[in-house]
Structures are given as C-alpha cells and as structure tokens.
C-alpha cells in the first residue's frame, strides 16, 4: 500500500551526516556498494564496469562543492571552502516516491520509517525516481526495477552480526565518523542530541518531504586572527616555541 501508514512506534531510523568532518574519501559509497551488492536489493548491477563508459547502480554518491558564506567575513578566497557532500536516501516522512508508485512496490515501513522497494511488484515505470527531489533512487536496466538505499535493513536487525556491527555499512566504514545512525524519532537518542547541538538541517525543506536524515553544517572557521601565520605568534621563529604554539592552538580549538 502506497498510502503512508501512521507511524505506530514513533521510531524514525535514519542517518546524521557531518559535513564538517566528511573528507570525501568515498569509503561509504564503496562499502555501501560492497554490502548491498549481496543484500536486500541485490544486485547493484554494473554495466561495462571496466570499459569506456562504466554505468551502474549506487545508493550513495559523494559530491564536492565549493562554498562561500553569504555574510560575515566579506567573501574572497579566505572564506571559500570545499565541502564534501554524501547523498543517499533520506527516508522522508512524506516520501512522494512512495505515494506516486502505481503498484504498491514502494512502501514506507510503519515500524521504523525505512523506505523500501518490493522488487517483485516493481514494474519499472521510473515515476518514483522523478518524484524524489534528492536523486535517491536509481534504475537498474538489467533487472528492470528501481533500486534504493535500504538503510542496510539486512544489517541493522541482523542477529548473525555482533551488536556493534548492526549499523549501516556506510556508518561502519567511515574513517572520520562523519556518519551516525540512530532513531531520530527519539529526542534522547545520540543522533537527535547531535542534531540539536550542531543545528542539523533538512535538505530543501520547502519541498515538504520532511527528510528523516539530517546534515550537520560545517562549523565556523577559526577567526582570522587565530589563523595568523605562525611566524607572527609569540616566540617568533624559534622551533620549540612554534611547536608549543601549534599544540596550544590545536588543543584550544
């Protein structure tokens, strides 16, 4: 049924992604591909993988943006920064990808809010991918069905995995711990507290999809004076003083 069932448990499983610490290594995309190629929505078909035009299904893709604050430091190269942006399904509370589905193949689980596709019912009309503003769904031309992030539903409830590993593959692998998994419906959960502390945001909230996943915006840069060249710091060019100064700055951030 494509009508959005009322959430019976209040649980809203999702991801919180820290844009401040993501270094754009693509490890999450690779781990996702590796796990899900044998997972719930397998396979994640690759066409011509070693040829001139490789083409394939991925649930997670990492974009790089150049950003500049619209106010504050006055712009210029000093405030420009590179931002790595991992993009995957946001498991929205108002997922139009589900309601537009004509067959009932797309559904949102009432118990935890995960949005899934029943591959046996999907007719491959692609309408759900048009209805998603975030590009979360990718069509598999080989199977003739739509595929998408499962939030590793086959890991997070998997009794065969040690409890510590019952997390999405992308979260497990992240070397900078920029990805966090948890229940965003529970205000006391670690992810909810993180969102509250860091001012987590929704992507394109005006469209009304109410994404479950949140993104933590990059932290403010150190003030310009704090970032002054080391030679100007007290102690001048003496190597010992410079090292101490560096340690001091690092620890006081």
């Amino acid at each position, binding site marked *: 049924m494509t009508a959005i069932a009322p959430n019976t448990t209040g649980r809203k499983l999702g991801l919180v992604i820290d844009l401040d610490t993501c270094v754009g290594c693509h490890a999450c995309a690779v781990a996702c591909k590796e796990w899900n190629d044998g997972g719930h929505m397998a396979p994640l078909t690759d066409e011509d993988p070693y040829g001139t035009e490789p083409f394939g299904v991925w649930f997670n893709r990492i*974009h790089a943006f150049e950003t500049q604050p*619209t106010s504050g430091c006055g712009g210029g190269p000093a405030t420009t920064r590179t931002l790595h942006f991992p993009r995957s399904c946001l498991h929205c509370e108002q997922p139009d990808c589900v*309601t537009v589905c004509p067959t009932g193949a797309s559904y949102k689980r009432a118990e935890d809010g995960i949005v899934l596709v029943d591959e046996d019912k999907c*007719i491959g009309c692609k*309408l759900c*991918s*048009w*209805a998603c503003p975030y590009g979360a769904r990718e069509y598999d031309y080989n199977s003739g*069905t739509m595929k998408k992030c499962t939030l590793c539903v086959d890991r997070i409830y998997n009794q065969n995995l040690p409890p510590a590993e019952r997390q999405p593959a992308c979260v497990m692998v992240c070397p900078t711990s920029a990805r966090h998994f948890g229940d965003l419906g529970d205000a006391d959960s670690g992810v909810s507290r993180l969102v509250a502390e860091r001012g987590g945001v929704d992507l394109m909230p005006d469209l009304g999809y109410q994404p479950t996943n949140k993104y933590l915006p990059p932290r403010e840069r150190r003030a310009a004076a704090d970032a002054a060249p080391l030679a100007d710091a007290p102690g001048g060019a003496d190597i010992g003083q410079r090292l101490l100064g560096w340690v001091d700055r690092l620890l006081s951030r």
Partner: protein
Amino acid sequence: MHPAASVILFTVTSGMGYGLLALLAVLGSLGALPPDPGLGLAGLGVALALITAGLLASTFHLGHPERAWRALSQWRTSWLSREGVLAILSYPPALVFAGGWVLAGRTDGVFALAGWLTALLAVVTVCCTAMIYASLKPIPQWRNRWVMPGYVALALATGAVWLALLAGVFGVGRGPANAIAVLGLVVAALVKLAYWRHIETAAPIATAADAIGLGGVAQARLLERPHTEENYLQKEMGFRVARKHADRLRRFVLIGGFGLPLVLVVLASSVPAAVSVWLLALALAGTAIGALVERWLFFAQAKHTVTLYYGAATV
C-alpha cells in the same frame, strides 16, 4: 527531463483519442451531430484505436510490462494508477454509446447518458495524465497551474481536428466540426503561450546551496561530480535543450501545430468538399506533429532538482 519517445507517443495519441471521443460523445448526445453510422463507426473507431494504441505504447517503456496490471491497484494515492483505472472504466460507456450510434442509429435516451459519461471519463482521464506530471514537486516546469489546462486543451484541439477531417470525409456536420476545431486550436495555442510565459517568469524553487542544506547561509557551486561517467540520474533527469533550439521549436509548434492548421480548417469551410478533405488531412498532420513537438519540449524543458547536485545553479 529525458523525453522518452514512448511516453510522448502515449500522451499525444491517447490525448487525441480522448479528445475525439469526448467531442463525439458530447455532440452526439446533444444531437448536434446526426447519428450517421459511417461517421460513428469511423470516429469512435479511430478514437478507441488511438486510445488503445496509446495505452499499449505506455507499457513499452516499463521494465516489466507483464506486471502492468499491478498499476491499477494504488489509485488512492497515485495519479498514474488513477489514470489507468479511469482509462479502463471509460471503455464500457464508450462501447455502449458506440453501439447505440453505429448499430441502433440512436444517440438519445440511455445512449445519450452513456455519451455524457463517456465524455466525462475521457476528460477526467486526460486530467489524470496531466496530474502525473503536475504532482511532481521537484520539477517546477510541471508542477504549475498551466499543465492540466495544457493537456486538456491539446487533447481537445487535436481531437477536434480529427473530428473536422472525419466530418469532411462523411459530409456530415461539417459546420459545427470545423467551428470547434478552430476554437480548439485557438484555445490550445493561448494556453501553451501562457504556459511558456509562466515557466519563463516563475522564480526558481531551489538553489545548489538549498540542495546541500546551506540555503541562506552560503553560496555553493559544484566542484566535482561523484563519478566520471553519466549515471541514471543524469541520463533520466539531466536532459537539457539549448535555448535557441527551444525557441525555434516553440515557433514551429505555434505556426505548424496551431496557426497553419487553423488557416487550413477555415479554408476548408469555404471550398468544395472534395478539396476540403485534403486541406483537413494536412491540418491534422500539422496539428499531430505540432503536438508531438510540444510534448517533446514539455519534457526537454523540465528541470529536476537533482540537477542541483550535478552543476545546475538553480531549478
């Protein structure tokens, strides 16, 4: 949005069929067209053939056409499902109306009732087709108030030119048929002009910064895509048409699709029947090609918010 041939063919041919069906049903039920068996058989036959061909064409782009029956199940939420259900529901009254007209030579009484129901279902089915597009929030060129009028107007205009041709061929009801074709073409042209004006002047719904959650805080510009080759999202939703080509195609739609057929239908009203049929056939060809080009543009000029992640500044 990628202009898929099967979807363009489907929406144009089924729209044409529903337009012709609705006009025949209304004019027949009103008694404005005499129940001439030749016109009834040809007109309703063409309408139902166009509708059926369109519906079949719509399954060609499916990954699993054999599961298409499942698409009738989710009419509570899905416009695509509603369209399928209404398309099927419109057949029984259309067949009753056609039976009355062709076999019994009657379009009154219970057959008129079937006719009104047929016309209603035909128009509502076209509205559902339009709503499939008009309900998609990520695509501002589709989610606006001019999309549904555009689909209905184009369906009625193309159907009306078909009706004018058939009325000319059978020499029945030429006057009202030609008048309706002229009216239909004028209205369709005006609605499309209003639609184009709207999509040119409407404010963007999102920026690249909004797409990454930094709207209002920072400006953002794509630095690097996640992958070297195009993926499904870019192939399906990243289609772009150059401005000068779009302008040229719009002029073609206005002149070849609406203007020229309009002149031909007017001319056809004042020349001998034998000549007028050829003029009307030419008018139909122009309208049909114009409608196909217009529908191609409807897709090609539609921008999806996912392109913000692949280099678009605004959508």
